[in-house]
């Protein structure tokens, strides 16, 4: 972020105070600054965002007062409470008067400029007015002109990581996302393919060293998870860029009622013999309700897994409670824990000559349960959308099954790394 410059914040009767000329930054677009006039009927908080997605000013508006923001010529978006209320094109020396956005409804204290920050130079002033200020030029909404970016940018990022950022005029960010996503995906693939599929096949073969195998699988878990997070994150970021929701423009939805979460927790587990380690992934859903400020409780670790070798199925679900002890800007930190139960029903193994007897063997069941403590680090990419990393330590009270005959024994302390995404409503 560049240097922000406040020329004046004044309170005066009648017509808007003249804006001071902006300095010569962005000289290519604004030899002479333009003005955006907010009010006098508008109320609430408003954010002015440049075409490049940079927040030019945070402004608090009060009825009966006008606020004038001097800006270089260019395209700007005015948002309030996370919603776009207008888009304007400000020409050099032009004044755009925005008439009372209806969403700015709550009565607020006297007008003030909360923050003014941008690489784009701007000036702000406010005044009291009993009548609408005559506009010197026409207000013009260009929402339609940029609507296509809201759709195209995330779609393009989904196909080509970083592509959406290029569309929203942030090529450097796009290149970084592309390099990061592709690099980590290739790294994860390299680690996965470096495993020897024949390990354990030959009698007496010691296979790869334990440390080597554990590091390989741990690295795969971390890299593949990070690649997935970056992939999803850059799609959301592309949308954010298209609607001007980037950086400090993102306001986490603290007062959400419910959050839906999708996560993959994974660990490197011991195997009974060669190979001596295996990856134990657990994909699950959670529905978390905010029952009190900072406190969430909900159904978690919901999943259904197959046991193909035994023709069975595993159903899992649990209860989780978290307390959010830190929330600054886009970062939330929470701690808590949960209890998970799981039930498996699968065909009993029997010894028989006739394959039909094996296929028609009766089912057997297995009940499992484990508890865990977790530390949730959550970063909001959009107002409602967040990505999270959750290290957690769990203790299985019985054998814990991951499906496909992958199991952690009872009482085996397990350190897991969960990564995922959440949407808050």
């Amino acid at each position: 972020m560049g240097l922000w410059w406040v020329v004046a914040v004044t309170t005066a009767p009648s017509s808007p105070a003249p804006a001071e000329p902006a300095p010569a930054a962005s000289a290519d677009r604004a030899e002479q600054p333009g003005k955006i006039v907010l009010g006098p009927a508008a109320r609430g908080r408003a954010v002015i965002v440049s075409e490049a997605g940079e927040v030019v000013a945070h402004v608090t508006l009060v009825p009966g007062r006008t606020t004038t923001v001097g800006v270089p010529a260019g395209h700007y978006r005015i948002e309030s409470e996370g919603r776009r209320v207008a888009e304007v094109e400000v020409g050099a020396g032009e004044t755009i008067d925005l008439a009372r956005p209806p969403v700015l409804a709550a009565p607020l204290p006297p007008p003030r400029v909360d923050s003014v920050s941008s690489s784009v130079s701007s000036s702000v002033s406010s005044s009291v007015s009993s009548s609408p200020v005559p506009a010197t030029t026409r207000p013009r909404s260009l929402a339609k002109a940029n609507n296509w970016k809201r759709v195209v940018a995330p779609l393009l990022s989904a196909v080509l990581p970083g592509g959406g950022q290029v569309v929203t005029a942030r090529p450097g960010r796009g290149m970084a996302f592309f390099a990061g996503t592709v690099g980590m995906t290739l790294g994860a693939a390299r680690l996965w393919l470096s495993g020897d599929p024949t390990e354990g096949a030959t009698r007496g073969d010691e296979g790869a060293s334990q440390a080597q195998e554990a590091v390989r699988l741990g690295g795969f878990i971390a890299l593949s998870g990070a690649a997935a997070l970056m992939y999803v994150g850059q799609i959301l970021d592309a949308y954010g860029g298209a609607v001007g929701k980037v950086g400090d423009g993102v306001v986490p939805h603290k007062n959400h009622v419910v959050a839906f979460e999708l996560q993959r927790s994974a660990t490197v587990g011991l195997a009974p013999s060669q190979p001596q380690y295996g990856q134990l992934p657990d994909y699950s859903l959670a529905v978390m309700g905010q029952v009190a400020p900072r406190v969430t409780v909900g159904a978690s670790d919901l999943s259904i897994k197959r046991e193909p070798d035994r023709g069975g199925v595993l159903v899992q679900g649990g209860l989780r409670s978290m307390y959010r002890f830190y929330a600054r800007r886009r970062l939330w930190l929470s701690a808590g824990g949960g209890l998970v139960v799981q039930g498996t029903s699968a065909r009993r193994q029997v010894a028989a000559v006739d394959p039909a007897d094996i296929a028609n063997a009766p089912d057997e069941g297995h009940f499992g349960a484990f508890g865990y403590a977790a530390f949730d680090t959550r970063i909001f990419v959009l107002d409602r959308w967040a990505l999270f990393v959750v290290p957690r330590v769990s203790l299985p009270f019985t054998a814990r099954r991951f499906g496909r005959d992958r199991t952690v024994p009872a009482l085996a302390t397990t350190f897991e790394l969960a990564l995922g995404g959440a949407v808050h409503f």
Partner: protein
Amino acid sequence: MRRATSVAACAALSISACVLGFRGKAAFTADHDLSGVEEVEITLPDTPIDILGCTAVEDDPEACPELLSYRGVWSSLGGTSNKAESNAAEPTVQLVREGGLAALSTVVPLSIAGLVDLEMGTMTMPGDRDVQVYGGVGDVSVDGMLSTVTVVVDVGDVEVRGANDGLAVNTEHGNILVFTGGHADLRTQWGSVDVEQLGGARDLFVETENGDITVTLTDDADVSFTIRAPGTIRIDTPQVTAVTDGSFERTLGTGSVSIELTTDAGGVVVRGS
């Protein structure tokens, strides 16, 4: 310093992903009566499998008893060392019989599925029984079984000596080495195939998706060759000498013995013994 070390250790542990547990083992041996049994079907989980066929000696019944004998070890995991040991003792290897057919397989309760692993030792049985082997990950070696042999395995090299009444091998990932006097059908998706025919010429079908094929023939008098390979094809038998690539087809004599060799990535060598 100590505090910093503790904090670093806790931080490393908290972001690592691992399971803390214990290992256990339980050894076992078994002898199953095979009198009256003509065919033995062996289905085992991931483990190397070695089968040794013995030949009966007229005056010495002890030399080759009518038994299927083996030993092995169950390896296991547990949250405690005692639990690991008890888990290792739970699974079983069972043989059931029905008429002239016997089936050997494992029974692992669902409660410990994924917590135990079998390492089977060498199995011995009379060499005149037909044998079918089905495995997961593990090399398979069958030596001295003179009747029909079938081997199907997911991952692992397969080596067969014998199978004079016929041989079928299918492995997804592994090399195949065969010395046989019988007809043979050998397939691998990823690996080379090396076959040496013993006695007279027999039908031979070999297919690999990625590997070389080497065949040694004792007789090429009435052989029909059908060979396809992107690499070099070399034929050096008493009646044929050729070097080519792509494909090779030739019928010698009556052509009553089919030699069909196909590799999707590799070369083929056929030679006389």
